[in-house]
């Protein structure tokens, strides 16, 4: 089932299905390794509407919630 990255719980993994948003944002996502087919692990979700921290291929990235809403993923059991 496809959901937004922001809905994945801490410690869970998901596979990127699609990026939504303008070309600029899509490029910024991809150059930081967030692209279709990659497996993302949600490391932390910061409280008080703070950003989330994800891990892709051993590399960590911080991204704001609004951005995480534009990354569509499929949860991996």
């Amino acid at each position: 089932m496809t959901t937004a990255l922001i809905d994945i719980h801490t410690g869970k993994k998901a596979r990127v299905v699609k990026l939504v948003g303008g070309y600029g944002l899509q490029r910024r996502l991809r150059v930081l390794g967030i692209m279709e087919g990659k497996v993302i692990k949600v490391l932390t979700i910061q409280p008080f509407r703070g950003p989330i921290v994800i891990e892709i291929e051993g590399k960590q990235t911080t991204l704001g919630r609004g951005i995480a809403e534009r990354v569509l993923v499929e949860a991996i059991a």
Partner: protein
Amino acid sequence: MKKILLMGNPNVGKSVVFSRLTGANVIISNYPGTTIDFTKGKMLLGGEKVEIIDPPGTYSLKHSDRAEEVAVRMLKEADLVINVVDATNLERNLFLTFELMEKKIPMIVALNLWDEAKHTGINIDVKRLEKTLGVPVVPTVALTGEGIKRLVEKTKEAKAPRIKRFTEKQRWAKIGKVIREVQKVKHKHHTFWERLADATIKPITGIPIALVVIFISFWIVRLIGENLIGYVFEPLFELYRPLAMGISSWLGPGFIHDVLIGKLIGGQIAYVESMGMLTTGLFVPLGMVLPYIISFYLMLGILEDSGYLPRLATLVDNVFHRLGMHGYGIVPVFLGLGCNVPGALSARILSTKKQRFIAATLLGIAVPCMAQIAMIFGILGTYGLRYIIMVFATLFVVYIIGGVLMNRFVRGESPEIFLEIPHYRKPSFRAVLKKTWMRIRWFLTEAIPWLFIGVVLVNILYSVGFLDWIGRIFAPVMEGWLGLPREATTALLVGFLRKDLAVGMLLPLGMSAMQLVIAATVLTIYFPCVATFAVMVKELGIKDMAKAAVIMIVTALVVGGLMRLLLIGV
């Protein structure tokens, strides 16, 4: 002269490569965005002198912030491009590589952080990568210098790449194919240290750790600073005292004496109050400020090189986002606590005009530099820690309220945080010392001339009666509104040149502790020093700086007036 341009993503070690190639000293750290402007250097290449340029890192040639814009602009003048690539992050780094290749400028690839890639189980087939890209590829470890010689030799073989233009989608597809061909990754389990590293970014453990880290950092800064003063600098100035007294009696009273030695207090030189070039002009920068500059930059260097700052930025993002910035807004604050000039420059790593305006304005208002902090400790320390805390607590509250208000009223966008977290690295002792030394040298060459000018100016303006006159004009504001003696106006005037000197000038005015608290706070808020002012004009533009200046002066008057009501009463 031929121009060689270093291009690469942020935090891949471009500046380390630059410093290896040119022997030049540049500031390097372990967080994306350390280089905010380009650095130029020269080197000999095959007997020919060439210019090497190190612009800020960029993820792609379609820039998204001011620092990246610099890099893209520089590309037009380049004769040769050295594309520095992070070997531990090959796939995403190749996007810029392919974009660069389409520019058809002769190019060579430095596969940097080669050792770290091997450590993490990444294996890259260099020969094959070279063949696919059609340009020379050299593995390097810039920190140790490994591979740099070969990189220089190989520049001879650099040639304009032959490549057709891709659409973005095609480019990513091509990169995917290249990666599958040349890279093998061995799966590795998390080590103990990696789990510990994760603890510094998870809120439950990360926030207490951050508080401890900040507390310990400032404690060490104070410890080193106080000991340097007590055991090194003050004894040195006591040794110097007989000489200064000798000069004083040799000169005899007069204008020259006032400028060089200043006023004698009880027949003796008082290093803070005398206001002479050879007394206060030397003692304030060297005896009171330099020790703290040394200890502060030592600590900051360690924090920067370890890779902790991006994690701190992540933890504080929820606060900073409400202040109209994002988590990276903590970087100008940290750098600004050393000196506001690099602090104001580092506002560039924020993404929009609005964010940069807020970061720079708040920096000018509520972030005192180390020189000023040292002097505030110097003059208020004798009254007790709670007065010092009053100053900093007020500044903290002003920072928060100012940010919330500006977030509401400043027009423009404030995009969310989006930032790579580097791996922790053990700071290299040599690199930290070198960086500290560069920053200290900068302080010495920039600060002391302004201090001398300040001291001379005070003496001249005093003897022609200008200070009395300006004091009378501002008396209603000073006495009536802020509850300070009218002579404090002079300190505010001098504060434009050097704030540390200005704080020192408050001492002979015989104010109460509460008045000193108000004066020190107002002095911080009302206006940045001339060096910071110049940088802010350049960074924000005259119009925005004028707006910022109005905000600063209004804030100083409002905060100062409120403090007077709260601390002294009407």
